[in-house]
């Protein structure tokens, strides 16, 4: 406990105070992003559910044997964009490409065309959903980290450093007063000695 450590603590406190608004801002930014991704995920889930409802009236045809829809609708490539959002590296959906498969019009049934279209659309939504859920997971982790840091600074580091600084300042004040007192006492004794002589 000396003046050097007090100076170091004051520098540290300054750094903590500078960092706090950064984490508060990051938390706000991430909160907004997480909310908009959650809304997007909700929308996608609703679309998936709506499609499931819409096709219920004719989905029975897909039970027909000998038609492999999986072979007819194959994902060739998913285009993703690498982005950095609030310091987090995430992937965003851009486009999807399906392998072009021409059905044999003489051996495949009519319903196959509608089924291919709906399977491709639904598969696209499912892939978009997976990508968004992955992105949400990463941003939620980052949001939790930003929140932890903000709370730690606000509730622990800053108050504890202030308290330590206060204690050191009291201690150093006491030491200084003691030194002055001692010096005065020594001076007084010297004066008394000189008077006696």
């Amino acid at each position, binding site marked *: 406990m000396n003046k050097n450590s007090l100076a170091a603590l004051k520098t540290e406190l300054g750094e903590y105070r500078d960092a706090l608004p950064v984490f508060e801002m990051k938390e706000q930014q991430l909160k907004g992003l997480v909310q908009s991704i959650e809304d997007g995920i909700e929308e996608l889930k609703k679309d998936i559910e709506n499609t499931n409802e819409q096709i219920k009236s004719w989905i029975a*045809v897909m039970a027909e044997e000998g038609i492999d829809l999986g072979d007819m609708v194959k994902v060739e490539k998913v285009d993703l964009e690498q982005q950095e959002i609030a310091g987090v590296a995430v992937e965003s959906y851009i486009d999807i490409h399906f392998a072009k498969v021409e059905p044999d019009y003489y051996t495949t049934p009519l319903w196959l065309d509608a089924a291919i279209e709906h399977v491709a659309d639904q598969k696209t939504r499912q892939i978009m959903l997976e990508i968004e859920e992955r992105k949400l997971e990463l941003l939620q982790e980052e949001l939790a980290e930003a929140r932890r840091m903000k709370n730690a600074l606000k509730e622990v580091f800053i108050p504890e450093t202030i308290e330590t600084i206060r204690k050191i300042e009291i201690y150093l004040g006491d030491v200084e007063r003691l030194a002055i007192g001692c010096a005065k006492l020594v001076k007084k004794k010297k004066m008394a000695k000189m008077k006696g002589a």
Partner: protein
Amino acid sequence: MIGGTYEYLMSSLPDLQFQNTNEVKQEVTGLLQKYAGSVADQYDPVKILDIEAQKFLPVSRYRIFKKMNLKNIHNEDFQHIKSKVVSNFSRFSFELKTQLKAWRTAQNSDERKSVKNHLDHILSAGTPLEKEIQIMKYQWHKLEDLSAGHFSDVEALFTYKLKLLILLRWWSFDAQTGFEKFTRITTKK
């Protein structure tokens, strides 16, 4: 048109109607399964009918009978066989599939052109399921026309198999199985 050898078989086969009710399904499949007799593990109605027909048909006709299904009936080899019902139905199927191909190709093209088609009454409206039922009904009525007057001869037997194939196709449509397939395919990685 009474053909003695076929009379017994035709009269003992379950009556086929263009219907999709549990009652009709059970009656037809149940009766055909009774035919399976000693072949107890045989539950496929088409295979059961094939086995029964083999007992009555000459080898060359049985080969055609066994080979024929709704996917290949339009093939050229069926268009030129002796059986009038089969050859006419084969030509009809080829024409039907050609019309469907023209419609499907136009629908699948980027512009989705509208083409004049003899099947407009079937294809213009309705869900894919309704369209399939309309197509099967169209095939059924064609078979009825082609087989008029044939009750217990070889033509009646061929007609019976084709009608059975149409019904079994219709009866295979099942919403739960279809939805399970759809979900499996769309969520598969």
